[in-house]
């Protein structure tokens, strides 16, 4: 009996000692993630394409546009608004932004990731022998489209210091906005090559037109805008869900009013009640029980989509380009946009459409889409004193790890 017990024990000991390596390797597989090398198959491409769109929507597009609204004169932060508690948003509103501002981190980080995955998708496509040519085209179109969008967003919304817009790629040197626009342009021109439908081509043309407009090249802007989106075209937009809600709803609207809108948007509606159709607002009483604030309800639901490019904006681009050469056509375009909302035609006070009129129309039509910050910078309408940020800073986190920028 004694020998039997000892034999069993020693066998067990030897067994345990000998199986250690095999034991730790024999584990159940992960269920909530997959290793990169398992995604190099044609069948996984739709999964990756959807991922790019999901990542763009949240937290890149919605976060950036909301922060741009806070930095511009569209929205503001006030601790007197119930549930407005995030001082990071307060810093952005005031244009006195610490480089470690917490609200900047997610959109900047994931803008970088979006740039990386769109570029990596192109590399992955080259390694796959597609049997479905349309799927391959679609993959290339998406990779170029969103790859261009990332570069456009760097150039338009971020800056090295208070007044020098631009971005950075792959921990390289700072790329000024003009050069970054060139990079975006290359991507979008490639996207045009792989656009599957005419509507997709028009979307990309409108994006290019806007890029040229912001870059100050009126000729090219007009050339592409004229090939851009037309009435009835579906907007290029980010989609959300109750699980992945639109930041405007979640933090700058009915979900939680960390940011409220400038009072002039209420005034627009008072001056012309029909404007409330495109400038929907909801009142909220301040904690002092005296001050009335307004929340945007343009994005009334968690799943409210956020447009990145619309045919209306394309019309306004053309209107701006025609303002001096053909103001009547410009006014027509504005009124076409207004009519789409059921608004009466605009009649300029002087009889001739002015830049101020156009700016006001852009202020309303492109409200909370990221255009206002750009317009304020383009036309010298910045509302904060010198020395304050006019773009969102490239965060300290990038500066710490990037040897090319301080």
């Amino acid at each position, binding site marked *: 009996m004694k020998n039997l017990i000892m034999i069993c*024990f020693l066998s*067990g*000991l030897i067994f*345990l*000692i000998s199986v*250690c390596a095999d*034991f*730790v*390797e024999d*584990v*159940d597989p992960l269920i*909530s*993630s*997959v*290793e*990169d090398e398992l*995604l190099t198959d044609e069948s*996984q491409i739709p*999964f*990756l394409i*959807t*991922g790019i*769109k*999901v*990542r763009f*929507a949240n937290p890149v597009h919605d976060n950036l546009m909301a922060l741009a609204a806070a930095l511009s004169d569209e929205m503001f932060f006030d*601790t*007197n608004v*119930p*549930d407005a*508690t995030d*001082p990071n948003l307060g*810093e952005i509103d005031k244009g*006195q932004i610490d480089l*470690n501002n917490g609200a900047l981190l997610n959109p*900047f980080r*994931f803008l*970088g*990731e*979006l*740039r*990386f995955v769109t570029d990596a998708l192109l590399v992955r496509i080259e390694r796959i022998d597609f049997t479905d040519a349309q799927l391959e085209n679609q993959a290339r179109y998406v990779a170029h489209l969103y790859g261009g969008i990332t570069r456009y967003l760097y150039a338009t919304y971020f800056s090295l210091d208070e007044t020098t817009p631009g971005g*950075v790629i*792959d*921990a390289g040197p700072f790329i000024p906005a003009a050069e970054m626009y060139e990079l975006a342009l290359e991507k979008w021109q490639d996207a045009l090559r792989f656009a599957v439908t005419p509507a997709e081509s028009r979307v990309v043309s409108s994006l290019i037109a806007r890029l040229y407009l912001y870059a100050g090249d009126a000729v090219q802007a007009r050339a592409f805008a004229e090939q851009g989106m037309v009435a009835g075209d579906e907007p290029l937009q980010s989609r959300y*869900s*109750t*699980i*992945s809600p639109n930041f405007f709803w979640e933090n700058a609207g*009915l*979900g*939680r009013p960390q940011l409220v809108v400038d009072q002039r948007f209420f005034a627009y509606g008072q001056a012309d009640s029909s404007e409330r159709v495109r400038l929907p607002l909801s009142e909220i009483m301040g*904690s*002092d029980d005296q001050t009335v604030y307004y929340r945007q309800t343009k994005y009334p639901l968690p799943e409210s989509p956020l447009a990145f490019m619309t045919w209306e904006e394309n019309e306004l681009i053309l209107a701006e380009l025609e303002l001096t050469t053909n103001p009547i056509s410009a006014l027509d375009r504005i009124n076409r946009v207004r009519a789409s909302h059921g608004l009466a035609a605009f009649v300029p006070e002087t009889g001739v459409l002015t830049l101020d009129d156009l700016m006001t129309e852009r202020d309303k039509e492109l409200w909370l889409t990221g255009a206002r910050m750009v317009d304020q910078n383009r036309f010298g309408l910045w509302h904060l004193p010198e020395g304050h940020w006019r773009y969102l800073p490239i*965060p300290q*986190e*990038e500066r*710490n*790890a*990037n040897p090319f920028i301080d």
Partner: protein
Amino acid sequence: MGGRIASNASSHRCRILAVTILLFPFLVDLVSPRPLVSGRIVGTVKDAASDKSLAGANVVLQGTKLGTAAGFDGSFRIARVPPGTYSVIATFVGYHKQSVSIQVLADEVAKIDFELRQDFFRGEEVIVTGIASRTSRANSPVSVSRIQVNDFTKTNSYQNLTQLVNGKLAGVSVQPSSGNVASGFRFNVRSGTGLTGSGQPVIYLDGARIESSDYFGFGVGGQGTSLLADLNPEEIETIEVLKGPAAAASYGTSGANGVVLITTKHGRPSEDTGVAIDYKLVLGVNQQSYHYRESEMISARAANQVFSSGNIVQNSLSASGGTQLLRYFTSFDSRVEQGIFRQSRMNRKSLRANLTAVPNKKLTFRVNTNHTYNRTNRPHNDNSAKGLLANTVLAPQPYNFTDSTAIANIHSEVRSNHFIGSAQAQYLPLTTLTTRIAVGIDENSIEHEAFFPVEFDYSPDARLDAGFRSVRAQHITLFTYSIDAAYRLALGSDWRISGVVGSQLFDRRLRSTATEKFDFLTSLVHALGAGRQLAGVSEGFEHRREAGIFAEAGLAFRDQYFFSARLRRDWATAIGRQAATIAYPGMSLAVRLDKYDWLPRTFGLLKTRVAYGETGILPDLRDAIPVLWGPEEGGEGVGAVISQIGNRAIKPERVKEIEIGLDAEFQNKYAIELTYYHQKVSDALIRFRDAPSTGKVAGLPPINIGQAHGSGFELLLHAAPVESRKVDLNMTLTGSWRSNEVDALGGAQPLFDGNNINVIKDGLPKHEFYKQVVEGALFNEDGTYAGPRISETRVALGNPIPGHHGSFALNLRLLNNLGLYVLTDWATGHKVFNRTRRFRAIFGGDSEHNRLGTQIGLYQEGNSKFVENVESLAPGTSEYEAAATRFARLETSSNINSNWIEPADFFKLRELSLNYRFHDLLPKLGLANFLKDLQVTFSGRNLWTISRYSGPDPEVNFNGSFGAIQGQDFMTSQHPRVYNLAFRFSL
């Protein structure tokens, strides 16, 4: 329906288990063998100096299964002793053992009276020095901290492990993260030099490794519920802590931050009554310990009103005893505790059955089982706009964010079903060889539900306002398998050799699910199915395994020189796909100087020791996988996003430690234990934060590039200057001094916590507060305030982990039966980031900020921070400049959070208790025959605090215990003052 059936089945099993446990003592008695011809041994066990009875002392006949425990008057009786000559040994915790030879004749009574001498160093206590190694403390080559838990639980009442351990161990401090019931806590073991992971020791309960993490679930602002809150202190016999790699090398990977070994109570043979029954009733109350003042905040009155006194009722019943063949300990404990907030509650039921069977001298089986059902409710606090504190300590007007009735109706309940069990078989095929095989399981199922009823106003948070429900589940199983063989051999009269060889396997699975819905029509039906919109759904799973083999060899000469060497080799799923392996060596030497003839006899013990060891810290499970993609749901559907970026070449962090110590006991009244240690970390896993523009932002890929070092002293002084029959006085002083420094991050940028203030940076201690500071005020040309003058660079501002921690305990016994126990503890070199006050200044509730802002003209009439009847000062005057300079230090921008980092050294009167034993009264009342002991104790906890910290409590951290955020107070609950009245009956 299915859930109801499962619940009924579970309840049925619990009832069967309960009945079995209650009947167990009688079953044991039925199967006990009875000798035909026998004698008896009777006698007493008393303290040699004071003559007091040592109730519970063990008396055994060496080489037999016979023995008993002394009764309340110190008397014992061992019946049915076969005639013969025996060596009878009496032992009692804290005393030197005594052995007496006696002859027993048939049908006669042999009498022995033992007089035990106190063992101030507790040198004869057997302590754990390795997985399968034990030795007496007097011969141990390493410092092992130990708590004889029964010394404390016998009279006092403790909610959890935190309260039990706090202030009682040298080299180990415990930092609770909030005053909520069942809140998490952090062990700070030695210098905590390792850079990877949570910095927490690995914990074993009766040989089974157990989970020690916090459960967070649907957030309530910050605090999680500690899985260790399920442990019932009443069931614990001892807690031992191996404090670093020098002692824990044989535990291998994961032992770098120390090893905590918890042993639960076991039955002792009792010939007198067959069963020893203990019943303890505790009636207590939790109270607000710190009252807010209007001089610090405008809404102080409302803040004080959110606290309420919470009752504590604990019933603890245990039965133990058995024979030499079969011993048992069974207990049932119920603790219902209301915290200092109405929504802070705990209802814990714990059932334990420990069984030891010794069928023959060579074979021993032990089975330890415990099931705990713990229902806890957590209040919203910390970083939550729905929190009671956030709504009362920030803005001038209370409930600025959420209505008080709405807060009162938030429901968050965590139900934990926790089973911890272990089984062990020990076989001695030879007198020199011990073999052991053991299995342990820690199985924990958590159900968590949170609910925001639609009838209450949670606007402007629209999703909560529409009615919101979150239901989560988490299931963890952790198996421990171990097998080892130990031999012990005497070579002549001088030499003894010993050795251990064995293996350990760990298998851990974690599953979690969560579903959240909102938009309910009524809270009358608030099952998930009644929610109309989905807010979130997730499922997680991970499976990890670890394996290790170990060997130890020991050599002792003349019981004076003790040398040992050990080696461990580990494998782990987390290291890499190819089962990379790592080895850890260790060695130690101890010399008993008191054995030299030249040493004065005043020393009962004088020992020097030196030990060296290495252990490691594992990477996370997925760290070795280069790129992982996970699903993310959005409006476009579910797509693949990068979920983690790892490093295929990763290996465990290595921590090396050398410790040198001196232990002494002298004049039979004083004991000292002094230890110096130095730790060095290499291959530290640094989470390399790539520039976001690289796109590699999903997690921080680890690289083995970090280096760090740490060192410290530990001191334990024990004195018993007065010892007599009527008066006993003994005192214990502990002190720990620690420091650490990060030597290199291999070029990685400093690693900051989420709030960008705690840092891991080369040249600084771990978790140091590191931020720009306000150097003064700036002034415009007209003398008006122009803002704070901020340093250009960050500076080190102190550490959230105290550099020194100490405690002083006093035990005084008067008139034989009246006992007074006092425990104080303190910490220095401690800083806390008072983020609460920063936000109070932002939201206008800070009295000083508002007053100064008004004085310097920054806040004028109409501004919500304007203070009436405060005169504005004239710019340019010295008064104005002084006010402006002070105001600059109350500015609230995030880049000058340093304004709110405060000294947080503290001194606490941690425990005070007054105990009376009706020891002498029971015989006079004629109760002694059936009531062995009756004690009444009145005790208090957290009775008095001195601290320079301006917040309520310096022992808080809003984000729980284990993360990168440390020492940050953000509307975090203070610790309650606790009063308990405990009655203990022993039958």
